[in-house]
């Protein structure tokens, strides 16, 4: 045996209760689950720990990162063994050389991937989807189930016209042929977008497609039994319901699975998300396969006083200062004794909010000591209150002090928890690898266990594991993953059920071209095995194993 995991609490991904057992792995496959008498070349003692299938993250934008980091860090240390990139109509292939800068612009606009990262981190040695797959396979630690983007198909076939008009019949046929080629090369499905803007703030190419074009492409998906992913107008409930109906019609017509993401809980309109879910159930009971994706993490709001934030729109004096002010006049208002008194008086009844604000970034060395602390903590250290600390830090930093107000949206634990548990909901929409300069998109799996299993008891640990392993694999038709079962690929996550969590968010410089991003470390994830080899341990970090595979859909 190559590897034996002993005495773990096995949660096999099926949703059945955990049990004590061993797992034997040989040649990258699970060969036995239960009592293993044979000795492994490597033995892992998992006593007191959960042994589960590796987690699957179905909504990511790691496309570019995979070109310089085949582990899609820090996904693996959060227990994720398979990622789905290429969402929202954007993939990095197929891509003609002439369109590279156009696509870089779109990735920059939509996913905040810096231009310099592409300049310094990418060798453009592919055009076709197959060549791209060959390129990323060279150094792959994590498994990748890549979507092909509708905008990219249009760009290939129609060139710049893809950003202006619907396709002709001939162009639609060319897109169908190209999609087929991509699916044959390993794409798990097609993604499209009804909301995204390109770098010129014009709609991305997929938004110029009419319903007939999308239908024609879905016919190809049907022939290959592959999935359609869409990002819809998630900010409007009635449109969401209409998109659910559209996807249901497509799903029934072509007998394919569809997924839309993200679906959020609006704290002022629970009825909206209830209506959307009720429609999904109704349509699925009528034979459709429509899977809304719901993310586990709440939404945070970040701001500085150098840009007016709507966080202050109900505070007349504050908003007037920010809305009509220049940096100089805002600084002057903060410095003026009378004006400051007025500002503090107006906002002091919201002291709870100011106390919870976290200082995210500063530029002066002197204030680095406070980064990561909340304003209540900093106020105590400085002998003042949170509101005055916010003003003082902003003055000291020439308004370049960055604050974060955590848990401001999608944060009703009962409501979000009941959605995450819902049998017609897929847990996903992490956006891993995107928005890198705004917030961290990593650690949603840890947050699922810490918040919705341990603290809020929204679901059992077995249900949570099933949701992000076998359910996801089944929905996406990913073969032989998602269960701890003899014959299945040995993607395994070993974690401490009492400790698994996401760590605090921090800013790090690890993007090519001296770029930065927000990340989170994991807590409680001890070992991650991909393709039968240890890819990560909590103590030793990432290993040199490269067993990641391209995981295409089941035909």
């Amino acid at each position, binding site marked *: 045996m190559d590897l034996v995991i002993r005495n773990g609490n096995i949660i096999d991904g099926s949703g059945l209760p955990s049990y004590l057992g061993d797992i034997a792995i040989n040649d990258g496959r699970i060969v036995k689950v239960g009592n293993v008498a044979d000795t492994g070349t490597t033995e892992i003692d998992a006593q007191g720990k959960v042994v589960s299938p590796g987690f699957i993250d179905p909504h990511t934008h790691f496309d570019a990162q995979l070109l310089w980091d085949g582990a899609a860090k820090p996904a693996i240390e959060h227990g994720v063994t398979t990622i789905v990139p290429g969402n929202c109509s954007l993939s990095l292939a197929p891509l003609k050389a002439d369109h590279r800068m156009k696509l870089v612009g779109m990735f920059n606009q939509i996913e905040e991937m810096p231009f310099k990262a592409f300049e310094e981190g990418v060798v453009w040695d592919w055009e076709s989807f197959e060549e791209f797959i060959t390129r990323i396979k060279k150094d792959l630690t994590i498994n990748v189930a890549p979507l092909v983007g509708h905008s990219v198909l249009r760009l290939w076939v129609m060139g710049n016209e893809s950003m202006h*008009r619907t396709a002709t019949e001939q162009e639609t046929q060319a897109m169908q042929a190209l999609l087929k080629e991509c699916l044959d090369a390993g794409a798990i499905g097609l993604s499209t977008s009804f909301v995204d803007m390109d770098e010129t703030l014009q709609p991305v190419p997929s*938004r110029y*497609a009419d319903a007939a074009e*999308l239908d024609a492409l879905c016919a190809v998906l049907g022939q290959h039994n592959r999935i359609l992913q869409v990002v819809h107008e998630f900010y409007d409930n009635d449109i969401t319901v209409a998109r659910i109906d559209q996807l249901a019609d497509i799903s029934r017509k072509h007998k394919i699975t569809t997924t839309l993401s993200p679906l959020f809980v609006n704290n002022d309109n629970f009825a909206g998300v209830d209506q959307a879910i009720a429609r999904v159930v109704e349509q699925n009971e009528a034979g459709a396969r429509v899977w809304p994706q719901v993310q586990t993490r709440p939404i945070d709001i970040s701001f500085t006083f150098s840009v007016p934030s709507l966080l202050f729109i109900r505070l007349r004096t504050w908003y007037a200062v920010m809305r009509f002010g220049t940096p100089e006049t805002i600084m002057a208002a903060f410095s003026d004794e009378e004006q400051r008194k007025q500002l503090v008086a107006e906002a002091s009844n919201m002291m709870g909010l100011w106390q919870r604000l976290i200082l995210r970034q500063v530029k002066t060395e002197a204030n680095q000591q406070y980064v990561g602390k909340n304003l209540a903590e900093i106020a105590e250290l400085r002998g003042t209150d949170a509101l005055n600390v916010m003003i003082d830090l902003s003055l000291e930093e020439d308004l370049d002090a960055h604050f974060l107000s955590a848990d401001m949206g999608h944060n009703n634990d009962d409501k979000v928890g009941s959605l995450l548990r819902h049998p017609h909901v897929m847990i996903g929409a992490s956006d891993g690898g995107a928005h890198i300069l705004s917030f961290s998109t990593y650690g949603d799996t840890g947050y699922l266990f810490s918040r919705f299993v341990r603290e809020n008891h929204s679901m059992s640990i077995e249900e949570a594991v099933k949701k992000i392993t076998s359910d996801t694999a089944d929905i996406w038709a990913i073969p032989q993953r998602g269960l701890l079962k003899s014959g299945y690929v040995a993607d395994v996550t070993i974690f401490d059920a009492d400790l698994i969590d996401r760590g605090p968010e921090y800013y790090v410089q690890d993007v090519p071209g001296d770029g930065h991003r927000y990340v989170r470390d994991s807590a409680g994830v001890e070992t991650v095995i991909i393709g039968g080899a240890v890819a990560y341990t909590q103590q030793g970090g990432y290993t040199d194993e490269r067993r990641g595979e391209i995981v295409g859909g089941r035909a």
Partner: protein
Amino acid sequence: MNTVRKSIFPSAQDTWESIAARELSSSSTEEGIANLQSWNLHVFARPPAPAESPRAGNPILPSDILFIEPPLV
């Protein structure tokens, strides 16, 4: 199926005028357009197409969903 708000997929050439004439024929064109626009404010939440675009002046995209009645009560 439960009743949901009525919507259409516009054709590539559709404008407020053509949709109002087709879908809201019992109203005057002016009233139909005003109603359509008030029910579809999301269409305005995007930059206008540049002057050289074949869509210049028309904010409706072929992939849109457009409501042809107000929100249900």
